[in-house]
């Protein structure tokens, strides 16, 4: 079996695994929709008070909210993707089995996470987004090229998101338990990805800092590309640079970890 087909099979496995829990997916759609409605109202009040905050008008702010609800599970912004299983396997020692596989560890987990992301997008993300588009005024592009550019930023966002979580998961090789790391992922993810407020609207120096951190690649960049607020090439460069840096760091840490791996449980 060619290695490309192997990773494709792993990705399909990730997709199928999440597709199994239909009630949970429906529940997730409901929750994301409710949160979307609450956020839209608060954003509208905020933009009423200060029009063009962060360079967005009201319809753009609304679009940003629904995109956030769509990508929340897709990009595992709060954590809870492949890295959760990886941490578990490192903690229990099952990682030893993975290390014996004739496959690349990072690519293997990336494939699984991409499959998961694709399912979460189709199963959980699209419906709240469509709901938002139906019931609230949104700033959606009508030309196909913009949507195509948006799709590319989504792929890059998936890579960056995985790279961050993979690095975090590898830390369990040293920490032995992922609870604290998971919490850190949750806090940084929600705050720095711009789930609470678009990064454009962050004030002063804080805003300048959060806009260059890798988390900006996850929600802010796709949103800006979709709404034509930034040049797609600039967004690609930003996202790709962070993806390369973080994935390379992941490789480095991975090789350090596997060299000194102490497998728990005998």
């Amino acid at each position, binding site marked *: 079996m060619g290695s490309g087909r192997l990773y494709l099979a792993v990705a399909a496995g990730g997709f199928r695994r999440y597709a199994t*829990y239909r*009630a*949970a997916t*429906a*529940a*997730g759609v*409901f*929750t994301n929709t*409710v*949160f979307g*409605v*609450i956020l839209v*109202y*608060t954003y*509208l*009040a*905020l933009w009423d*008070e*200060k029009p063009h*905050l962060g360079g967005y008008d009201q319809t753009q702010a609304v679009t940003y909210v629904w995109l956030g609800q769509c990508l929340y599970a897709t990009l595992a912004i709060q954590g809870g993707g492949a890295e959760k299983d990886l941490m578990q396997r490192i903690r229990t020692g099952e990682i030893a089995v993975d290390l014996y596989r004739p496959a690349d560890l990072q690519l293997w987990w990336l494939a699984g996470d991409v499959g998961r992301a694709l399912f979460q997008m189709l199963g959980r993300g699209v419906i709240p987004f469509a709901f938002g588009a139906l019931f609230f005024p949104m700033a959606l592009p009508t030309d196909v090229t913009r949507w195509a550019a948006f799709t590319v930023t989504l792929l890059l966002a998936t890579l960056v998101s995985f790279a961050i979580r993979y690095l975090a998961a590898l830390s369990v090789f040293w920490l032995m*338990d992922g*609870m*604290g790391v998971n*919490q*850190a992922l*949750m*806090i940084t993810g*929600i*705050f720095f990805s711009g789930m*609470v*407020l678009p990064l454009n*609207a*962050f*004030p002063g120096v804080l805003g300048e800092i959060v806009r260059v951190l890798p988390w900006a690649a996850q929600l802010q960049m796709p949103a800006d590309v979709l709404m034509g607020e930034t040049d797609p090439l600039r967004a690609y460069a930003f996202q790709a640079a962070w993806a390369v840096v973080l994935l390379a760091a992941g490789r480095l840490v991975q090789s350090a970890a596997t060299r000194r791996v102490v497998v728990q449980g005998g």
Partner: protein
Amino acid sequence: MWIRSTMAYRASFVVTVFGNLLVTGLDFVAILLMFSQVESLGGWSLPEVAFLYGLSATAFGIADLTFGSMDVLGGRMRDGSFDTLLVRPVPVLAQVAADHFALRRLGRITQGVLVLGWALPAVDVDWTAAKVLLVPVMLVCGGVIFCAVFVAGAAFQFLAQDAAEVQNAFTYGGTTLLQYPPTVFGKDFLRGVTFVLPLAFVNWVPASYVLERPYPLGLPPWAAFASPLVAAVCCALAGLAWRAGLRSYRSTGS
């Protein structure tokens, strides 16, 4: 038992309480960020919004501490371990509530109390005896209303089995909602959270009285003091739903 098991790892406990404080505090950070850009939100000032936030977060924290474990119920029904609870001579509801009782949830209450502690002296209010008394009443009744939502959500899991997250929309969604002024939301939305799922009585209505703001939806003046009644009705309904759910429960069987 669950408390003792947590306390076995003291350092870990402290870290998770602190982490919880940070995670739940993010909501307030979001509000602070918003107010770094504007003077008021929906016509309400930062101390007033903080007052709403502190009331909602503390009331929710109380409910989360007591009934927050309700979401493990679906998992227990799926793996069959729920049956064990049925044969013990203790009310099932009490057992589920104590299941995985997590003292780390103290972080949430602490965070709410801190914000409330800052907001109370900061809001511009002529404190009367009625207003002072209304604050603890709001916390207790709000906690009870959220508890009822948790229990009703658990009852719903008898039907849905794998949909713990629907409950989150009402519990976590509810507390997020109440952290913002009612003036922010649309009329229909307000009607829903006042008359259908009466979350408005956790803080919006009584807090409007304290802050001398017009009541949402133009409710009559006595509505500010209706929270205990609303809480009692919610409890009764949630209790009925729970009993109906429990009676309809059929073990996974094999």
